[in-house]
């Protein structure tokens, strides 16, 4: 049974990694889940040598993380797997929430047009991992399967690992260690690092069902449906006619009993309400915690993804936020490894991503408190909200069936330079870059596809030709120690003949200028992970230099 054939990745003996003297590598990643693999790909794109260890030799067992949000897809575009993943996934934007059988609330994740990627795609985690493995290998990452890290000794300037393989153990040193070994993180536990937060007393059943069904590609969520009274149910479409159905069971449910097909099948039959044939592909019972490590950086150890933070599944904030961790981390690591930024730049990984983790924890905790009320009064308010939501817009806004993963506005980041000029839009320092349609080299294109990997200055001009006075200083930025590449967005069409080293894009629909509240001469300094760090109404070389210094932690005090 099953719609998916699991690949087996070849084990290679560690002959080249062991010897009389313990070897030292610049970067080792532990864990080949979506987050570890994203980090490996990004590190290769930054030209870093990557060694990745995973204790298994295949992809994720079961569909697990299913929903990948717009921001994650934009990061996957930068990593070179966006199309592969989106082409395989089920795109959706609309979510419907039902109270009993009545629809009370509906949301659209991307209510306006003009973005390359949809609000969300659903795709079984194994497909995502398979695509990421292929990409990492193509980029020359050294992936080692059946390598289990059993010990980590953290030193000031490196980590010493003990690694078990089918050919016995060996030791290896890493200048930097990215820990992506999941929610139970053996490395985190071995080092005795605490994770603080709340445990939720509830159990959920996931059933992945193969069936022919004509439900639309939407997220459907029921409070207290007749087919599963008193609890909630969530339905998602995946590829291969696989449907993810998530039943709330309550804390008293017996996880072993509830996993038995004779218990699961009647629940599904009640829900589907007809005799349609279906097959069970995967069943899992889960509980969850909302918690995070106090610090994501411990000297040379950098914790990412579930190893660093865990949230409730309502909102798909697990894998999505983990991939954003890698997105935030790798460019900083590259600058530090190249000697272009001080080591304290990596403290801002901790700063930015603990901030994001807290926002994810806040939102997923609030969703959980709405979905699974903890007291009779909470339930009364929940039911009152659902009742009012049928008729009143304000109450619909309060219905919380999961606030879906969106990127954080890193407004508190010490890498940002506060605004001096007035802007009306949401692209504040710290904001994730907003996509928009453009015309590049005469073809329809997307703004975000021109950003990533290094610092860039987005400059708004009237014409393709740069103003004479600005031409030299703008192009000179590419020669700075930390280079800044120019991306020019013009209000007027770009003549085919105009030859430029830099990207010159035509804002044909005016949406870039609108979304960035741009006037002629407006500049945005963009981080390598597509976040705004500074912006001005006019270019000033000195201000850009100062902002870049700040964005690379050159001008920060010793303690961030």
């Amino acid at each position: 049974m099953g719609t998916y054939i699991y690949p087996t990745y070849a084990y290679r003996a560690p002959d080249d990694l062991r010897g009389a003297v313990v070897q030292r590598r610049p970067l080792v990643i532990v864990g080949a889940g979506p987050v570890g693999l994203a980090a490996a790909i990004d590190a290769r794109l930054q030209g870093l040598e990557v060694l990745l260890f995973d204790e298994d030799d295949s992809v994720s067992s079961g569909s697990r993380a299913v929903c990948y949000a717009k921001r994650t897809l934009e990061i996957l575009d930068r990593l070179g797997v966006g199309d592969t993943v989106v082409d395989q996934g089920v795109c959706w934007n609309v979510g419907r929430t039902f109270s009993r059988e009545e629809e009370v609330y509906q949301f659209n994740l991307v209510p306006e047009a003009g973005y390359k990627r949809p609000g969300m795609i659903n795709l079984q985690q194994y497909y995502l991992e398979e695509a990421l493995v292929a990409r990492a290998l193509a980029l020359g990452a050294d992936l080692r399967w059946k390598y289990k890290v059993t010990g980590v000794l953290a030193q000031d300037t490196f980590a010493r690992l003990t690694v078990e393989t089918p050919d016995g153990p060996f030791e290896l040193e890493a200048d930097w260690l990215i820990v992506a070994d999941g929610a139970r993180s053996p490395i985190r536990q071995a080092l005795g690092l605490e994770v603080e937060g709340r445990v939720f007393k509830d159990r959920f059943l996931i059933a992945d069902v193969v069936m022919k069904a004509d439900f639309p590609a939407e997220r459907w969520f029921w409070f207290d449906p007749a087919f599963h009274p008193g609890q909630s149910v969530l339905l998602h479409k995946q590829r291969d006619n696989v449907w993810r159905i998530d039943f709330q069971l309550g804390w008293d449910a017996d996880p072993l009993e509830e996993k038995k097909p004779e218990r699961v099948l009647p629940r599904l039959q009640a829900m589907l309400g007809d005799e349609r044939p279906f097959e069970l592909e995967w069943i899992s019972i889960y509980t969850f915690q909302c918690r995070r490590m106090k610090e994501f950086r411990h000297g040379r150890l950098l914790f990412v993804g579930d190893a660093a933070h865990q949230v409730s599944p309502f909102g798909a904030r697990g894998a999505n936020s983990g991939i954003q961790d890698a997105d935030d981390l790798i460019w900083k690591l590259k600058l530090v490894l190249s000697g272009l930024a001080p080591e304290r730049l990596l403290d801002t990984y901790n700063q930015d991503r603990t901030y994001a983790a807290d926002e994810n924890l806040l939102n997923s905790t609030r969703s959980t408190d709405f979905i699974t009320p903890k007291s009779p009064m909470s339930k009364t308010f929940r039911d009152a909200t659902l009742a009012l939501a049928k008729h009143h817009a304000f109450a619909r806004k309060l219905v919380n069936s999961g606030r879906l993963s969106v990127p954080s506005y890193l407004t508190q980041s010490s890498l940002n330079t506060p605004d001096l000029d007035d802007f009306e839009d949401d692209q504040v320092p710290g904001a994730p870059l907003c996509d928009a349609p453009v015309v590049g080299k005469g073809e329809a294109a997307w703004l975000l596809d021109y950003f990533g990997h290094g610092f860039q200055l987005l400059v708004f001009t009237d014409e393709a030709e740069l103003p004479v006075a600005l031409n030299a200083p703008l192009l000179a930025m590419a020669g700075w120690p930390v280079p800044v590449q120019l991306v020019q967005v013009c209000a007027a069409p770009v003549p085919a003949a105009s030859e430029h080293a830099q990207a010159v894009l035509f804002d044909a629909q005016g949406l870039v200028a609108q979304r960035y509240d741009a006037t002629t001469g407006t500049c945005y300094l963009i981080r390598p992970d597509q976040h705004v760090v500074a912006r001005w109404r006019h270019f000033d070389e000195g201000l850009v230099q100062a902002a870049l210094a700040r964005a690379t932690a050159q001008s920060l005090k010793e303690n961030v």
Partner: protein
Amino acid sequence: MSLQLSPNFREPGKRYFRDFSAGDDFYEALLDMHQDLSDEQSALVNAKLILLLANHVGDISVLREAMNLAREAV
């Protein structure tokens, strides 16, 4: 003035980047208010809260409208 039924939550000095955030801030504060109370205590706290808010609104025609809607289908 008639009863405001569109989303209306906000907090001075706070900037929101997501349309659900202000309402969720309120809802969390509401549940926090009831933290560790017995059912009886919660009912009393709710009653006091209604009286405080009713005085703040002041306009009894608006309050009647709200009371009618609250009572509907109960």
